[in-house]
């Protein structure tokens, strides 16, 4: 994403924002409230339309008009509330809207078998693919949401505040799942207020402030004090990219 601009009425939400994501990388996107993190991600998925700037996926310029189009090129977003149907079971949710068919009917056997294999691939334990999602705990619901996302075979998964509703245990398990995905070559962007999670699994942190890039660091070469300082007092003029910061 290069030079992204977005305004809502008189409010300039994003000013000339750049974002780079490499394959298999986990990028933490941080910043204060109203920094423009969610807006940037919604532009990436096509939920919002940008005013200016360009988006490239694997070098190709793209113009997503809706989240469905970004999904087609392998960008998946997991919402804070998981966007699952509680009244349906795990298998039905993983294949929500694209249930496998056999003739005019739903191919249940195939659906549950594939749901099982996706869950295995994620190494998460959900008792049964026949369980109703509303009877699962928050962490397990999130596993289902992630399983749903990766069942599309995505290249990029965006997680919006993934740990906000989770217990400590569930957060641990989520981070393990993210590492597992990374191993499989899926790039991930986490929007989070909890730096500790980003430092646990992330490769790189990018800071937004009032709709501008104010800094970018490799997790290996920074610490939470530096990131906090950038969040609080970072300025566009003295922003460094991760490579520049590493060179210093």
């Amino acid at each position, binding site marked *: 994403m290069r030079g992204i601009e977005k305004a809502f*009425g008189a409010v300039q939400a994003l000013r000339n924002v750049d974002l780079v994501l490499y394959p298999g990388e986990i990028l933490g996107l941080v910043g204060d409230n109203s920094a423009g993190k969610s807006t940037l991600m919604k532009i990436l998925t096509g939920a919002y339309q940008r005013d200016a700037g360009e988006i490239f996926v694997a070098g190709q310029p793209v113009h997503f008009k809706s*989240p*469905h189009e970004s999904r087609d090129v392998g960008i998946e977003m997991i*919402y804070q*509330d*998981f*966007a*699952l*149907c*509680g*009244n*349906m079971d795990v298998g*039905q949710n993983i294949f*929500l*809207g*694209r*249930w496998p*068919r056999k003739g*005019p*009917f*739903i191919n249940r056997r195939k659906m549950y078998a594939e749901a099982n294999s996706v869950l295995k691939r994620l190494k998460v334990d959900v*008792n*049964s693919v*026949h*369980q*109703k999602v*509303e*009877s*699962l705990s928050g962490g397990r619901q999130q596993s289902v949401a992630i399983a749903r996302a990766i069942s599309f075979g995505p290249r990029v998964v965006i997680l919006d505040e993934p740990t906000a509703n989770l217990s400590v245990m569930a957060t641990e398990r989520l981070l393990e799942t993210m590492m597992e995905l990374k191993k499989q070559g899926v790039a991930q962007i986490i929007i989070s207020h909890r730096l500790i999670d980003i430092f646990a699994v992330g490769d790189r942190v990018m800071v937004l402030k009032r709709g501008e890039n104010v800094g970018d660091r490799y997790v290996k070469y920074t610490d939470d004090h530096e990131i906090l300082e950038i969040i609080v007092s970072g300025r566009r003029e003295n922003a460094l990219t991760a490579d520049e910061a590493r060179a210093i």
Partner: protein
Amino acid sequence: MTDEALARRLPSQLVGGWEVGLLALILLLYLSGAFVNPAFFGSSEALQALLRDTSRVAIIAVGMTFVIVNKDLDLSVGSTYGLVAVIFARLFAPSFLDLGILPSILLCLILGAGIGLLNGVLVTTLKVPAFIATLTVLFIGRGFVLALTHGQSIYYPAKAKEYPSFFHLGETNVLGFNNQIVIFALVAVIGAYVLAKTRWGYETFATGGNEQAAVYAGIPTNWVRIRAYLISSLCAALAGLMSAAQDKGVTPLYGVSGELTVIAAVIIGGASILGGRGRVFGSCLGAMLVILIDKVLREGWPITRIIKVGDEEVAVNAVYSLPVGAVPVFLGFLLVIAVLIEPWLIRRQIAGRLWAWLRGRPPPLAYETGGVALEGVQTKGAMATDIALSATGLGKFLARRDALAIILTAALWLTGLSLRPDYWWNLSNTFAILLNYTELALITVGLTYVIAAGDIDLSVGAVLALAGSTAAYFLKVLGADPMTAVAMGLLAGMCAGFVNAIVTVGFKLPAFIATLGMFYIARGLAAWFVAGQQLTGWPEGYNLLGRKLNDILQHYGIRLPDGPLRAFADVVSVQTIWMLLVALVAGIVLAYMPFGQKVYATGGNIRAAAYAGINTNRVRFIALMLAALCATMAGIINVAYFRSFNPVAGQFRELDAIASVIIGGGSIFGGYGTMVGALAGAAVITLVRALLQLNVQGFSMPQHWINVFIGVILIAAVLIDIWVRQANIFGRLRTRHVRGARTPETAHG
């Protein structure tokens, strides 16, 4: 948000400008009425009568404003109004309890408060959706009115003379106008002051605007909502007492479709059905406008007729009635259109934009939309444990959502058998039950889709009547052939479904308000077509749609040989076969095809479904159309079976059908419901009706009480669904009990 700040920021776009417009419209209507018919509208009596009749409606509208600003709805006011008048008559009239005036009034007010409390507790503490709770209370109240009056009027003019201080309230005072106008002015001023200037009012706006935020701000929103229901019911009770004071008697028709008039008045007065907006002054003007329209529609004027009751001459207000049903049709349309005004005209500032466009200026800044920071997350209580997974055998069956309906069906049938063994297991009885069942089951098939998709259709019974009446009209009045009649009936029903679907899906309004409007429109049209009469006598070819198989074969001159085939053809009628066919196809689609899964996904979490690429609008549209189609088919068959059309066809069917789906495992919040369950639910309702009508040792229950009973069943079914199936209250109580027994100290922690 104070009124001044609001007025400064948005001068004429909000309610203020709205009320001026309403006033202008009322004047215009009145002047045109005076121009057309100076004899009526020219006199000062006309104005007074308008104000007098507005008084009672406007008083209820004042209470209703509180409820609607809270984002709730109170459909029970019409029956509360009627019931209070009836109870007052039963308490006060010499032929009944013959109580004094004060105890009578007091008991009536207590009754009003009780109904309000019942509504409030059902809607808040017990979490029943407002429209379903108050609709049921409406039907129960109507049942009580009919049962307590036995369909007769009660008058007590002689005794009324002994208490002039009360009964004078309904009459013209020395200053030359009716005392009810004074009461109305008093209630309106108090209501306006409370809603606009006090904490009670502010709490109401906060609750209606964003209940979650209001809860976080420490507002006891449950109490705020219960309070509004109390105010609404007490206002209705007051209006009922005023009508008693005016007429010194009561007829069972008091307050019929009063809720329509009142809700239309409040919405036209600028309140939003989406909550958080509304003013008492606007509601009062709205009431006046609706009453004025009502009067204009009735083409003229209430006449005062002198009726002799015993030795007494009583002045009774009577009206020239237009074609029966015309008024509810127009008021229903008015309601649907008025509901669209606030979200589509005011919130989107159509007027402001148009004005800016005309002047060539940039359009005014849009209100911030979609930017609610704290949006209530819809939490459907999850089943604490997935019982179905761990259980086996009988346990597995019991954990099914439709288990209740299947068990009840069997239990009720056996009850019938044990009560009347001579009669119950009798071919003609079984046949009669099966026929009743067929009509209900057919409606239920469509409604299952609607409820599973998270919507509701309150108009199914009325659409049934509309389709039947259209078919009958074409057969009898126009002499059309059966095929044309069927086609026209289908067309009429599908038009009704189309309007439902467009208003609900296209204009994004709650389904209950769109279909409530259709409830009055379709029933009104049905009565209008047949001029309120029973139509009968047309070619037998049409009636074959509702005959037994054997009758049809005989019609075509075929004789079956005696034997099992003949016995079968003697019992089963064509509509039962048709119903089973429709149910089978609909059931397979719902359970095994992608469309059915889309319906469940839409009802379960509409945002998730949309994000998953499901066209939720299309799903809901089709579901609503399907419900109308099923009701239409039921209507066409109903006419064929009875060989006539009766305007009361399909009455209370919406109540039966919703109860069937909920008993059969559907959830009023959407996302659940199976065809097997719904059919079993319909069987339960049919059997309950059959059992209650059963003559056991010379005693049988009157029809009015049966409707009351069905209303109670509906509420019970909804409560069981919410609290047992979804919140698993027994499981939670058991857990708490077990935990409490082990460590009493931590039981509350």
